């Protein structure tokens, strides 16, 4: 096996037994990037020299017997998580040259854990999109079929992990932005409970929904990354002061006593691909074989989740993105003759069409006379969705659903019809509205050989339960072992 193909857990074992060095591993990953990046386009910024310095430092630590949780592991970061001294663009022209003077809470933790940061990953601009076609810089291609989208908005993250261009990655998930590309690229992706990982330094799209999470080659890696990233941060008022369990303590000894609910509304969604249904059905069988009990449940209000989301997320975004005004940082149009022009020319040229569309939608939803009909109404229905989940988790431990209605589609196929694209977020969005954790695990392939994931949802702070169920499923199947042919 080539070094770049290693999982994090395996690589740590080899590094700690001094079978390989972090420098060798990091070099192997850089070579891999050199070889396939021109096909995949996963990275916005690469810092191989810095990565090799970090790797050499990690090797020094190891020599001294100092084993850090991620000591020497090359990781990559979605480009809307701030890295001090390293360009953080959010996939946007408006921040094309922005160099933050601070590290995100996540980055501080990763550095303390000895991780090697190899670069910043492509994404839909400000995480608005589910195809990576809305990056201001490049289209990322799905490693399984380069003519297809990798999903989004953490498309660069999922593609880089799938193509072995890093050992693991961190993305952000506002409505499915980790789980959906993980499904399309055949990797594990997790959105933790809202507040589990600090949002400090995560550039905001929709603050009440955004959550950082890991993308990994295996459930074990995902658990380790989550464990390292989790915890309270006094700089984020919404981060939760709750101890972090040992997520890595996973046991493949069956799932007896586990009740998994299947929401009937999710399988009644129009336009679910036959391949996706087949994968979900076989997943149900696997869980049954593992000893889990499968029950039918109902989440009656989740059918409104897309409508709720496309009010709340753009509304928050319209305000969050007001700071990009060309005054303190970022792009400023030089054609402006007065203040008004400085604002409008800067923002019209700096933001892409999808971002502008959502800003307009969100501004409208908050504007005088419409607030009650849109923002308030959506926030009320959100309450009902949360209630649905609460009731469901009284009946079952976890909920199993598809991640996306279809496997990855062709680049350019749906770019002209935003609503159709929004509707495909139906399975992932409600977890963000409810703040609950969700994980996507590879669960099969389409007829054309495209990966399809399944999603498990848990109650607040039930990440350990989710990971353990996902781990048992993974150990009972071999979808995660297949690699794209690049």
């Amino acid at each position: 096996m080539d070094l770049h193909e290693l999982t994090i857990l395996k690589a740590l074992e080899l590094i700690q037994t001094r079978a390989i060095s972090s420098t060798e591993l990091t070099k192997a990953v850089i070579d891999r990037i050199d070889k396939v990046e021109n096909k995949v386009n996963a990275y916005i910024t690469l810092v191989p020299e810095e990565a090799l310095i970090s790797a050499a430092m990690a090797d020094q630590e190891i020599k001294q017997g100092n084993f850090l949780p991620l000591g020497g592991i090359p990781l990559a970061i979605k480009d809307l998580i701030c890295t001090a001294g390293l360009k953080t663009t959010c996939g946007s022209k408006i921040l094309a040259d922005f160099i933050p003077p601070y590290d995100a809470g996540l980055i501080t933790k990763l550095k303390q854990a000895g991780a090697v940061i190899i670069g910043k990953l492509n994404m839909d601009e400000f995480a608005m999109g589910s195809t990576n076609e809305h990056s201001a810089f490049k289209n990322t291609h799905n490693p399984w079929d380069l003519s297809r989208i990798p999903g989004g908005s953490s498309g660069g993250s999922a593609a880089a992990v799938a193509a072995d261009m890093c050992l693991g990655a961190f993305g952000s998930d506002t409505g499915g932005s980790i789980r959906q590309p993980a499904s399309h690229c055949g990797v594990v992706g997790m959105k933790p409970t809202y507040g589990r990982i600090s949002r400090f330094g995560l550039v905001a799209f929709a603050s009440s929904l955004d959550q950082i999470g890991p993308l990994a080659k295996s459930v074990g890696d995902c658990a380790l990354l989550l464990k390292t990233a989790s915890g309270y941060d006094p700089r984020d008022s919404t981060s939760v002061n709750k101890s972090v369990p040992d997520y890595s303590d996973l046991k493949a000894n069956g799932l007896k006593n586990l009740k998994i609910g299947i929401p009937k509304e999710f399988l009644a969604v129009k336009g679910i691909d036959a391949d996706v249904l087949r994968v979900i059905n076989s997943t149900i069988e696997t869980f049954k074989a593992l000893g889990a009990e499968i029950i039918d449940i109902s989440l009656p209000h989740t059918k409104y989740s897309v409508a709720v989301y496309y009010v709340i997320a753009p509304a928050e975004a319209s305000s969050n993105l007001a700071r990009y005004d060309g005054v303190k940082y970022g792009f400023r149009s030089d054609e402006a003759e007065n203040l008004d022009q400085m604002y409008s020319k800067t923002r019209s040229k700096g933001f892409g069409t999808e971002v502008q569309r959502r800003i307009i939608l969100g501004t409208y939803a908050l504007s005088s006379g419409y607030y009650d009909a849109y923002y308030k109404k959506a926030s009320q229905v959100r309450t009902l969705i949360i209630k649905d989940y609460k009731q469901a988790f009284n009946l079952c431990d976890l909920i199993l659903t598809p991640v996306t209605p279809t496997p990855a589609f062709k680049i350019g196929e749906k770019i002209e019809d935003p609503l159709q694209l929004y509707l495909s977020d139906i399975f992932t969005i409600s977890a963000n509205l409810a703040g609950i954790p969700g994980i996507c695990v590879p669960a099969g392939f389409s007829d054309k050989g495209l990966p399809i994931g399944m999603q498990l949802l848990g109650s607040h702070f039930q990440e350990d339960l989710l990971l353990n169920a996902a781990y048992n499923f993974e150990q009972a199947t071999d979808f995660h072992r297949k690699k794209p042919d690049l």
Partner: protein
Amino acid sequence: MEFEPVIGLEVHAQLKTRTKIFCGCSTKFGAPPNRHTCPVCLGMPGVLPVLNKKVVEYTLRMALATNCTIANQSRFARKNYFYPDLPKGYQISQYELPIAEHGYLDIEIEKNIKRIGITRIHMEEDAGKLIHDPDQPTSRVDLNRAGVPLMEIVSEPDIRSAKEAGSYLRKMRRIVRYLEISDGNLEEGSFRCDANISIRPKGTSPFGIRAELKNLNSFKNVEKAIQYEIARQKEILLDGGRIVQETRLWDPAKSRSVSMRGKEDAHDYRYFPDPDLLPLVIDKEWIESAKNELPELPDARKDRFCKEFELLPEAAEVLTSSHETANYFENCLKQFPYPRQVANWVMGSLLGLLNARGISIIDSPISPAGLAELLLLIEQEVISGKIAKTVFDEMANSGKTAKQVVAEKGLVQVTDVSAIDEVVLKVIKDHPSEVKKYKNGKTRLIGFFVGRVMKATRGKANPKIVNEALLKHLSTNP
């Protein structure tokens, strides 16, 4: 037709915290541009606000002092608008659920108490500052002030005259200073006031169209601007015109206001709950402990001064005009327990001195203990009241204690009867014609003799003994 003004005031008081409302940057005034900033108050991407607890505690004090109902749960909201002094493109404020509502403040107008309703009190962040370069096509942005905590107090439209507005504001300022939560300085901008003014025919109840007046940066300006606005609206209505709802900027130099119409566009602030901040919950225990920590407020202190020290209301008013003055008074009383004498000296000589020097009582060159020592010397008849004023002035100039001054200048009062007798006899001997007139019934000449004796003793003779000695010797002298 007679018109009645209807006025509501919005006061913004800067809270005296060490750090800003949502970050650890200093709130100190006067640093060069952009030195008191960090990623949070610069509105950089991805950083988050965290609420300064002291801001809540201070606002809670004000809410309790103005008889408000404290919200069990309040929220921060975003007020969205673009301006270069507003780094995030929104101001974090409170909107739907403010920390406190439905309070009141009693003011005194021509000896009558009038109650002014307080609609709400909320917390918010200040904006930065723009510096306009007169000969450049640019403006400069300084974000030192961005994020400095403000407390906004909105009154009901209960105020009916410029005078009432002034009285309300002075009272409000006195309270924030008593609570030690704000400097309350209009001129330096730590206490700002906007006024909403309309007029209506007297005796009618619907409100007229209102104008909002901004930039009222001194008490004098507040009253002047309100008077100006009332007159302006009257003139328009009497001419058959209509008032336009608008914001007007007061120009203190020209003593007039100008419309800001056109410069504010149609504002639509799109308020919504700030998702970066959690709901603020203030439970009963918190309110109780805040109540217990509340200092005695101006009205209560004034009443107590009247009762406990038997002072006239006017005197009590002056002595409680600030908590520092009241503290000075009471500290002095601890060592010299005669309220009337202390009150007279504080209101007379001391406040006169401070006024003349333009300094605050906390910077007084004579401490409460120092003044008490001086008053004790009078009481013990070591010095006379008249000499005491000289001693007071010398204390203020030199910083010396009363005893030092008296000793150095030899101002100890002469109370030795035989010594005074000697002077008295000499004065009688030197003025035979006056003595004759006195004996013939012109007894008011006693004052003349007292004056001579005092002159001869350079004021140090005890007036009482002088008086007695004169009466004795004038009656017995042949």
